[in-house]
């Protein structure tokens, strides 16, 4: 816990000594219980970077084992507990399962969600809608602390007797719900408890975001004048409210099955193993859109800013996101086509899954419309945003294969799936997170980052990312199963082993590509040049504020006169028009 506390204080520098926090608390307590949304955003950021390194290193350990099965892992092998590695530092099969599980769980719940929602939700919503803070600042800080606690519980599973759970991030019952099957009753219970607490954190956050967006917009900020990241996080928060409690309920039932002898998932007692899958995926599918919607929002804005053009089809973007949010709740069965679910249900879910690809297509075409006839400035955030679109198309197109019921008979649970979701999760979401961090860092820290390091980071991660995950499509089509610690036990996979080696080399490179990024962030925090208030000539409200932003944000509540993306208006000297500036009388803005 001390680590997070210290880290949180780094973010504090930002406006320490400027403006008063008005809480009368001093010293450590002041940092631990700070209700300023900008500080909470930084707390989330530093904490989830720790988890990125943790979860990413687990991936490297897994990749090592897949390329060179049974060979001791250099360095990492000696850091892992004895439930995971043998004495000489090679992964054991059970340990591999634990790492897969923890890698998936940590990166989804402790990296992607907090970064997208905890960091940028907190930082951007009040600033972009012209509010002084969140509706419930105390609840907001509570959300951060629940998140921290849940992370510690998750890490603690490694030290349970039997080790961390090795049941996958999907924790299919009855493997997960019966101690003798999974061998770590306590570990699995802690996993469920951690997700329960993490869920509470997400819910408190979501309550805050929804309430803030609905009630605290500055005068003139109508819903259809909100910047797209705010829309995206608003819709995401609604998805959280509906999806998370179902996971909590399902996890509670696993806790009961493990510890109190109930039989929800135990066939002998009349329970249903598939019940877990239905509940989990009812949460799990909306979850992937919970992750991608904010990323889409950031990308839309960054593309517009650096193309110096209004977002193409602003309303279409909003409608598409809403439709994704709605349809997201009726496609969960595409993870269960071949699970033993009724066959006609699989067919029905096949149709809804195909339909949900339509709004994604709309968004893709609108992004291309945004850069069409623009004046594209190549900066690091723009490069990442551009890469987002490209990688999202690749990941989305592989989704079409799996959405087709007969094809899923072949590719289900193979590396084709692993390739699909890393393209959408890393290639799209993480790239857009990088874009967003580079884009808003000057506002968050008041300083600019180093451009050279930024470009090195971009090119390394772009190249190594594709090197890591593209060959996985081929591995999957060759029949390589997920979650196996040694592909060479299968005759048909021996011949594709070189591909596994390529993936692993790529993964190591991808891991190393993170280093320039981390250096850049920490270096800039202290030594970066001071950032101007509006380094990108952007139109939204956060850029109208001087650095560092004071507690309470807006000295005078701003009034909003038009939509968020007014760039390159004909007849105007300046090529952008901030939302709180009236257009000159002779200018007519196009409706969006």
């Amino acid at each position: 816990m001390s680590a997070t506390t210290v880290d949180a204080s780094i973010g504090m520098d930002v406006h320490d000594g400027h403006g008063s926090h008005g809480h009368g608390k001093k010293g450590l307590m002041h940092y631990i219980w700070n209700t300023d949304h900008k500080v909470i955003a930084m707390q989330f950021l530093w904490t989830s970077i720790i988890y990125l390194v943790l979860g990413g290193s687990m991936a490297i350990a897994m990749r090592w084992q897949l390329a060179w099965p049974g060979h001791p892992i250099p360095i990492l092998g000696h850091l892992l507990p004895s439930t995971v590695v043998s004495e000489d530092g090679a992964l054991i099969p059970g340990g591999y399962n634990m790492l897969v599980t923890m890698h998936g769980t940590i990166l989804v719940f402790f990296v992607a969600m907090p970064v997208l929602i905890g960091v940028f939700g907190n930082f951007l919503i009040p600033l972009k809608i012209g509010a002084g803070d969140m509706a419930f600042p105390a609840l907001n800080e509570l959300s951060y602390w629940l998140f921290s606690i849940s992370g510690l519980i998750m890490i603690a599973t490694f030290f349970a007797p039997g080790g961390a759970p090795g049941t996958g991030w999907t924790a299919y019952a009855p493997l997960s719900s019966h101690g003798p099957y999974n061998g770590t009753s306590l570990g699995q219970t802690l996993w469920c408890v951690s997700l329960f607490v993490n869920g509470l954190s997400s819910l408190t956050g979501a309550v805050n975001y929804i309430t803030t967006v609905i009630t605290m917009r500055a005068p003139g900020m109508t819903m259809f004048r909100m910047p797209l990241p705010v829309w995206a996080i608003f819709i995401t928060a609604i998805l959280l409210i509906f999806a998370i409690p179902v996971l909590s309920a399902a996890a509670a039932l696993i806790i009961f099955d493990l510890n109190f002898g109930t039989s929800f998932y135990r066939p002998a007692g009349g329970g249903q193993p598939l019940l877990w899958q239905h509940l989990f995926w009812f949460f799990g599918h909306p979850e992937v859109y919970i992750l991608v919607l904010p990323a889409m929002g950031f990308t839309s804005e960054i593309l517009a800013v650096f193309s110096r053009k209004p977002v193409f089809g602003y309303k279409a973007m909003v409608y598409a996101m809403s439709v994704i949010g709605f349809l997201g709740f009726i496609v969960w069965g595409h993870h269960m086509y071949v699970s033993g679910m009724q066959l006609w249900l699989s067919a029905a879910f096949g149709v809804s899954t195909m339909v949900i690809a339509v709004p994604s297509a709309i968004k893709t075409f609108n992004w291309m419309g945004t850069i069409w006839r623009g004046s594209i400035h190549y900066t690091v955030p723009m490069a990442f945003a551009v890469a987002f679109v490209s990688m999202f198309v690749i990941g989305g197109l592989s989704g079409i294969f799996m959405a087709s019921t007969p094809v899923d008979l072949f590719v289900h649970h193979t590396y084709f799936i692993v390739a699909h979701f890393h393209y959408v999760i890393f290639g799209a979401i993480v790239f857009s997170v990088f874009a967003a961090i580079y884009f808003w860092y000057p506002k968050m820290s008041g300083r600019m980052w180093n451009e050279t390091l930024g470009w090195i980071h971009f090119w390394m991660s772009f190249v190594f990312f594709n090197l890591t995950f593209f060959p996985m499509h081929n591995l999957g089509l060759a029949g390589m199963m997920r979650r196996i610690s040694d592909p060479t036990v299968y005759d048909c996979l021996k011949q594709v082993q070189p591909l596994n080696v390529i993936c692993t080399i790529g993964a190591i490179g991808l891991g190393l590509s993170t280093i320039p990024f981390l250096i850049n962030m920490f270096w800039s925090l202290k030594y970066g040049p001071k950032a101007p208030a509006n380094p990108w000539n952007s139109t939204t409200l956060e850029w109208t504020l001087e650095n560092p932003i004071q507690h309470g944000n807006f000295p005078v509540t701003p009034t909003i006169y038009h939509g968020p993306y007014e760039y390159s208006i004909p007849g105007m000297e300046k090529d952008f028009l901030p939302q709180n500036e009236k257009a000159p009388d002779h200018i007519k803005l196009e409706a969006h």
Partner: protein
Amino acid sequence: MIRAMIPSLKKSTLTSGSLISRVVQGIIFLLLIVPAMAEQRAGNIYGLPPCVTVSGEKVDAIFRIIFYLTATVFVLTQGTYIVYLIKYRRRPGVKAHYSHGNNTLEIIWTTLPTIIFLALAIYGNRVWDEIHRPAPENALTIDVSSYQFGWQMRYPGVSGKLSPSDVRAISPQNPFGTDPSDPRTAQDVISPDLVIPVGRPVHVLLHSRDVIHSFYVPEFRLYQDCVPGRTIGWVWFQATRTGDFQLACNQLCGTGHYNMKAPIHILPEEEFQKWLTPRQQKNAASSTPPASPTQADPVAHKAPEKELPLTTTETKPKL
């Protein structure tokens, strides 16, 4: 895109520029090699392993359609994208075009994908239904039983029919859930390998004794979970050629999951009979009269006269 970005890259990383571009070149080379390697291995351009079942060919057909469709979409979208990125890069004196969108375009690019996707869904579900038609009458029925961490197959004995079983009776003592007091039970042929005849439909009844496992054979284009407490009876296939393959469990089921496999032998009909018949006869000869019903066994409390149903398909609606 790459070309458009390299100038700015060079500008900011003057010293390491040449090194980086060399690395980039090397990697692009590798990426081109990857599909080529897969091609060599599998003998066809999709990198798929050989397909040895009739239904698998249908899967491959729809796979191919989606492959060409997505490949076209990929080339078109990424191509346009790269052209835009280069063509519309910032140039002095050129201002961006001011436009908030175009409703006609929105309608076009909403309807077009909708039509394509719905067509795909309808076609896919038709193939799905074809693959899952009830197994033909002449099919060979095999009980495939999975456990942590292995497989057991149960073949019909001399009577030509599997002895009746009940999933609820499955236990460590009675792994197939059969009725020990039934004389037919002892006739069943138990095998660690999945041996099947070529050209004849094979109907598998999938069972699990503990957690969820799955029946996965890439060459069959077939995947189906085995769910404890249930008989999954809709999976059947017909092999089109002989050969040796491996049955894999592809559902995370515990420590030994990675190695939960069983050999598959597809044999010509005569050789298959040569394999099966001696085993059937051996069991018929050695099968003793049923054990006394008083003996404590898991199904003893069931009335012995009542014949247990042979569950070949799901009878009750499940989930």
